[in-house]
């Protein structure tokens, strides 16, 4: 090969490379990338999968419609996923990678409060928005952070509607009991504050140690305080024991609510009659009456469309994920571009209605527009009984 032809070859290659390099940014401009690390393996894998399905469902829906419509242009959506193996330290490393190596500007929350707290330290440092779909601990939002936004109700708001029900039912003596553990403590402390606000007297409030095998000392004391409503918080094992012993010690509250339990698998089956008429607040149910202003579907419409793709009815996990992406979408449209700081400011001003519920943030980044629905176990089935515009059926009091 002559030197001139070699030169021509090199020039040709160069021009191809140059050509590519001018084409590639153009492609990247039409593609918006989000990033997240989820618990795809490890002990939170079940939830991690549901979370991912909700994110993916947004991507699929939007891309099928040609992409996100921002300032008269269509942008396809892509999410960069990593697996945090249900481990906090791994998660932080992966978010670091998303930010510094993958250059992702728009971050989606991981699964779980503990991991979210750690990750948000990092995203705040980088001044990048983090829209949280699955971190309910109020401690996430109480640190004065400016770049975090949670679409879900945080734990300290869980019991609000249950306490409100109590006050509407003229139940005035509330007993509170929780496992000595952060999640339950935040929830039950929230209930105590709400009781004060709504004029319900807290006649008993205590905590017990995790994994206890006998709650009768607590319950005997509670019984002496004569409550007409009990709200308890803790993990399922203890809540099953509690439900049994409440009836064994002869406590007969008009209403019995749990932070979580009644809608979890195994609770109703294990407890039978003792599960009847118990209450639990839920983030979302298929009956919520909201019509999505971005996609136009109702909660039920969302569920149907989701089921067609993934073959199962969504619980609240997927739609929470989808809502987080809708918050970004709305902000992009407001800004008409993708400058992270401007997007962050637009997110702070969010005021939208989604099939998940209305979304509006306070200055801590908590969604204050939505409230929890309350589910009651009736004839062994969970049905929504509160608030009235969501209720499938009427609340029943214990005789």
């Amino acid at each position, binding site marked *: 090969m002559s030197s001139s032809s070699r030169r021509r070859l090199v020039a040709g290659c160069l021009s191809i490379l140059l050509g590519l390099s001018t084409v590639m940014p153009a492609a990247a401009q039409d593609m918006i990338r989000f990033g997240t690390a989820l618990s795809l393996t490890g*002990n939170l894998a*079940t939830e991690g999968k549901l979370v991912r399905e909700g994110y993916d469902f947004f991507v699929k829906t939007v891309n099928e419609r040609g992409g996100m419509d921002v300032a008269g242009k269509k942008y396809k959506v892509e999410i960069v996923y990593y697996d945090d193996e249900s481990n906090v330290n791994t998660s932080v490393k992966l978010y670091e990678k998303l930010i510094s190596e993958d250059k992702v500007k728009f971050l989606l929350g991981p699964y779980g409060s503990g991991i979210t707290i750690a990750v948000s330290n990092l995203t705040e440092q980088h001044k990048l928005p983090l829209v949280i779909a699955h971190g309910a601990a109020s401690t996430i939002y109480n640190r004065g952070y400016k770049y975090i936004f949670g679409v879900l109700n945080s734990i300290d708001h869980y019991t609000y509607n249950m306490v409100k029900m109590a006050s509407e039912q003229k139940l005035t003596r509330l007993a509170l009991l929780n496992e*000595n553990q952060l999640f339950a403590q935040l929830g039950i402390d929230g209930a105590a504050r709400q009781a004060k606000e709504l004029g319900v007297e807290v006649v008993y409030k*205590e*905590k*017990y*140690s995790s*994994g*206890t*095998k*006998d709650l*009768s*000392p*607590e319950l*005997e*004391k509670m019984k*002496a305080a004569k409550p007409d409503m009990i709200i308890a918080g803790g993990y*399922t*094992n203890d809540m*099953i*024991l509690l439900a*049994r012993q409440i*009836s*064994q*010690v*002869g406590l007969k509250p008009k209403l019995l609510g749990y932070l979580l339990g009644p809608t*979890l*698998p*195994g*609770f109703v*089956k*294990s*407890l*039978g*009659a*003792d599960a009847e008429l118990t209450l639990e607040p839920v983030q979302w149910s298929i009956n919520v009456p909201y019509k999505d202003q971005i996609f136009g579907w109702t909660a039920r419409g969302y569920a149907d469309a989701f089921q067609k793709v993934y073959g199962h009815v969504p619980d609240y996990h997927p739609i929470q994920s989808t809502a987080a992406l809708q918050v970004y979408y709305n902000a992009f449209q407001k800004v008409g571009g993708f400058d992270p700081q401007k997007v962050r400011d637009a997110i702070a001003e969010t005021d939208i209605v989604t099939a998940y519920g209305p979304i509006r943030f306070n200055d801590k980044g908590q969604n204050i527009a939505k409230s929890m629905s309350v589910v009651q176990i009736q004839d062994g089935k969970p049905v929504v009984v509160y608030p009235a515009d969501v209720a499938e059926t009427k609340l029943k009091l214990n005789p």
Partner: protein
Amino acid sequence: MQLVAQIVLNGVLLGGFYACMALGFSIVWGVMNVVNLAYGSMIMIGAYVTQMAVLQLGLPLAAALPLAALATFTMGYVLQRALLNRLAERSVFMTLIFTFGLNMALINLNLILFSADVRSLPDVFGRASFTIAGLSVPYGRATIFAVAMAMTLGLHALLNWTPLGNAIKATSFDPDAARLSGIDVPHVYALTFAIGGAIAGVTGALVATSYSFSPLAGESYTMKAFVVVVLGGLGSIPGAIIGGMLLGIVENLASLFLDSGYRDAVGFTLLLLVLILRPRGLMGRRFFAEVKG
């Protein structure tokens, strides 16, 4: 006063359950110097067997209980004969590591077979209770207490009045002398582990009826059994009863008089006190611990 009496009674009932639970752990530790960290998982297996027997085979609880015991007895025998005997008379750390690993394997096996869902048998005893001297006793807890006491007496009889019991005790004191007297030591070890397993199985059946269980819940039972055994004394049957009741009563009184959050703290403080003042446990004999070194 009524309240305190009720709480103490509840503590006694709880203590009976603790004692029953600790027996299987105690005998294995006392005789073979094996701290069985998989004990809680064996209790969980007993609970799963009971649940399957009741819900899927439609057996009454009275029939499901021996079935659960048989399942964990067999499991115990096979484990000891096939695996643990190879480590017998080695350093206690070897068996600790082995049972730690075994526990992880069993937890994950249970997770695969039964999922992580929390389960429990519905309303076997109902909410009913009877009254003694103005104190109410739920049938469920009373039954657990009765079964626990029956098992304790049964084990006492087995160890003291049968040739097998003598063989177990002899092996425990001095395996070499036992071997020279014609005792089949590996067989005795395997039987001892199997008896411990059977007790775990029965405990599991009781757990299934009154508590809830999941693959990961076993560890809290191992922990409680450990505390009761150290309190009462290694390998001692009366020790397990006294340790169990003491722990049950003290925990409940702590919940009543202090903040309930201190329940475990008080339990472990009691354990520390006993360890400082009477290191061999309340009813423990010096001999056991020293022979095993």
